[in-house]
């Protein structure tokens, strides 16, 4: 056997040293991992562990053609720590001021102030004693763009840094302001789609548990749990930016020409109920929502009601035709000032122009108040009420947000003796613009009342459809035949022979009804303040667009009465003419309706 190269004593020493070293290591391990484990773990957790939140990006709101109506972008809140600023960087300040869009002296004032006087909190300090406190953060700009921030970072000024945050931007400014709603500074959705569909839009923030080094940088290799952020879904509306723009441009014209208290325009596809454009006056810029009074932010198309006036006559006319109580040629004596109804004499409302015997077609075309009262009485109070309900009055249309009201339609038991003669001409009833629009759309849609459709679909970030909103029928109100007959009568109402001549579009059959009603001021019907409206659709035989224009207290430059035919019907025409080429609406092929009409130019103002 070979002799070993080391003596046994050396081996013993070496073994002893190794043993002692091992014992020492073991003892230290026991100390660290067992005896002081809790204390040290807590310290390490505090010093190194961190939870990083990964903010989800809020989804965009798009129009039906994919144009962005609301989107999110990151902005940087830029600031400085005056304690960290270096003398040698001062030469870069002019460039920094230029990038921030502020003057150099202004920047210098912010950066050179290194201490702030602060009240001393010690109980021993005399009252009012103030001591300097070092300033560690001076805000320079709240909304620095990413590209600008990159250029600022390239300046390499120590002590200048930014905090990133997402901000909601509305590229169209005031476009569809009352529909989109907005997110406030606390990132809370306040109104509109932003609030109603916040569940889909907001997404789900992610987080990860990780550790950081002494310079507070994340040590990615020590990531333990990681939940990725799920970005919000995109919401596609039925609105069309171009149609919306046309509508808003028109409402601006109305505001400029007639200085109304308020105005509303709604454009929709009557066959699906999809809203293509909706605008209110006054409006506001979504990017500067904080400058707009709350009152301006209401979507008055669903929150405000008004007496509809003559546009409501479609209810009585449709009802009597549907119940086959009359034909379009059935005549009524509209010269009578009162009639007997249910055994009692009832005074009839006045017409602006004295009328004699009028057919049902004439009553609609000439917008006779007395004629409408005759039609309703022929129908009977209960049945007339039922038709009004069936057309959607007195209940919410189902417009999903904006605080829709149901309007006001009293049941028959709450009516007084005059209601049966006044309600048919649109008095003693309160409706919203949305209700009136969808009631008229019912006629355009072959007698079926549709639910307003404003959200088309919800998509994920890869443009895959998550949910799709389909057109929804509320109920059938009148038969297709009655709806066709009504459309024919309404074509005459919107022609040179009716009250809505200003709405007619050359080469197209426009069906519609004007409305002019006196406003109730201090409990009395005002002779000077009116709500003028025009509600209609075209082409009458194949309706593709329904348009409602409502002008509240328009003021004519000439000082006359703001009839619906004067303040609202021209807007219908202008909007319609612009929509024809855009939507590819084909002109009418058929001849003009043969129903003879009188020479009425304006709808009748209802005199109670």
């Amino acid at each position: 056997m070979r002799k070993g190269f080391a003596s046994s004593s050396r081996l013993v020493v070496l073994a002893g040293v190794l043993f002692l070293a091992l014992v020492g290591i073991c003892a230290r391990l026991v100390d660290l991992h067992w005896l002081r484990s809790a204390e040290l773990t807590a310290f390490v957790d505090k010093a190194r562990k961190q939870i990083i939140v990964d903010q989800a990006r809020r989804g965009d709101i798009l129009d039906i053609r994919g144009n962005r109506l609301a989107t999110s972008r990151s902005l940087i809140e830029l600031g400085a720590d005056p304690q960290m600023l270096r003398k040698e960087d001062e030469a870069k300040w002019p460039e920094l001021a230029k990038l921030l869009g502020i003057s150099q002296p202004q920047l210098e004032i912010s950066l050179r102030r290194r201490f702030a006087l602060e009240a001393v909190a010690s109980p021993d300090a005399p009252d009012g004693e103030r001591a300097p406190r070092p300033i560690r953060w001076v805000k320079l700009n709240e909304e620095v763009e990413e590209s600008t921030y990159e250029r600022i970072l390239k300046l390499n000024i120590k002590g200048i840094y930014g905090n990133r945050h997402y901000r909601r931007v509305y590229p169209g400014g005031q476009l569809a302001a009352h529909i989109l709603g907005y997110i406030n500074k606390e990132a809370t959705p306040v109104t509109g789609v932003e609030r109603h569909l916040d569940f889909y839009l907001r997404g789900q923030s992610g987080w990860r548990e990780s550790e950081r080094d002494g310079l507070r940088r994340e040590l990615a290799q020590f990531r333990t749990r990681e939940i990725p952020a799920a970005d919000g879904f995109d919401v596609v509306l039925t609105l069309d930016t171009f149609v919306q723009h046309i509508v808003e441009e028109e409402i601006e014209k109305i505001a400029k020409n007639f200085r109304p208290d308020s105005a509303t325009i709604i454009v929709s596809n009557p066959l699906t109920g999809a809203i293509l454009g909706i605008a209110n006056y006054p409006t506001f810029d979504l990017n500067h929502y904080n400058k707009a009074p709350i009152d301006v932010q209401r979507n008055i198309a669903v929150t405000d009601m008004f007496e509809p006036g003559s546009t409501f006559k479609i209810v009585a006319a449709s009802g009597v035709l549907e119940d086959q109580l009359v034909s379009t040629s059935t005549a009524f004596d509209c010269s009578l000032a009162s009639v007997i109804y249910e055994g009692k004499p009832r005074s009839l409302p006045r017409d602006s122009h004295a009328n004699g015997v009028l057919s049902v077609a004439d009553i609609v075309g000439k917008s006779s108040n007395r004629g409408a009262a005759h039609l309703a009485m022929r129908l009977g109070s209960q049945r007339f009420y039922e038709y009004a309900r069936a057309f959607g009055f007195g209940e919410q249309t189902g417009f999903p947000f904006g605080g829709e009201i149901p309007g006001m339609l009293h049941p028959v038991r709450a009516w007084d003796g005059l209601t049966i003669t006044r309600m048919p001409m649109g008095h003693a009833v309160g409706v919203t613009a949305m209700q009136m629009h969808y009631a008229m759309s019912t006629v355009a849609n072959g007698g079926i009342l549709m639910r307003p459709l404003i959200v088309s679909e919800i998509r994920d970030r890869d443009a895959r459809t998550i949910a799709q909103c389909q057109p929804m029928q509320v109920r059938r109100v009148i038969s297709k035949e009655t709806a066709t007959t009504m459309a024919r009568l309404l074509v005459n109402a919107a022609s040179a022979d009716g009250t809505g001549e200003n709405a007619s579009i050359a080469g197209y059959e426009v069906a519609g009804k004007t409305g002019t009603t006196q406003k109730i001021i201090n409990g009395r019907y005002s002779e000077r303040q009116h709500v003028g409206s025009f509600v209609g659709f075209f082409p009458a035989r194949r309706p593709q667009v329904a348009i409602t224009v409502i002008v509240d207290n328009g003021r004519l430059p000439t000082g006359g009465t703001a009839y619906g035919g004067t303040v609202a019907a021209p807007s219908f025409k202008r909007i319609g003419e612009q929509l024809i080429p855009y939507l590819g609406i084909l002109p009418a092929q058929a001849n003009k309706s043969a129903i003879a009409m009188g020479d009425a130019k304006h709808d009748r103002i209802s005199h109670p």
Partner: protein
Amino acid sequence: MKKSSSQSALWNRLLIATVLLLLFAGTIGLATVWLRHRVSEVAAANQKAQARISELDRRIAEVNSQVAAGLSPDVLLRQNTRLRLGLTAPRDNQIVRVDEEVEIRLAAKRNAELYTTSVVPASFPVSTPR
């Protein structure tokens, strides 16, 4: 007392085994450290790539919002005025509506071209009786 040579040999073997064990453990340790280093390098690279992706996403969102703002009807109209382009919406009388199926008409036209091509006259040698 002197140790026997067999005892020394045993100790030597033990020592060699210990040294080898230490070397092995050291190698394992070094390998672990190297692996951890690689893990941290990869993690840092991933983090950097992730940060870059986020940065690009943010820039894309910025550009998208600028594009959306630039495409808003108001801005386009202002550009139209500023650049004196004189662009207007088409009037109804400028529009020619095609009611028929364009694809079918074009297909029919193409087919007609194919099948009505004029026949090129050709001559063939014909054997004649001698």
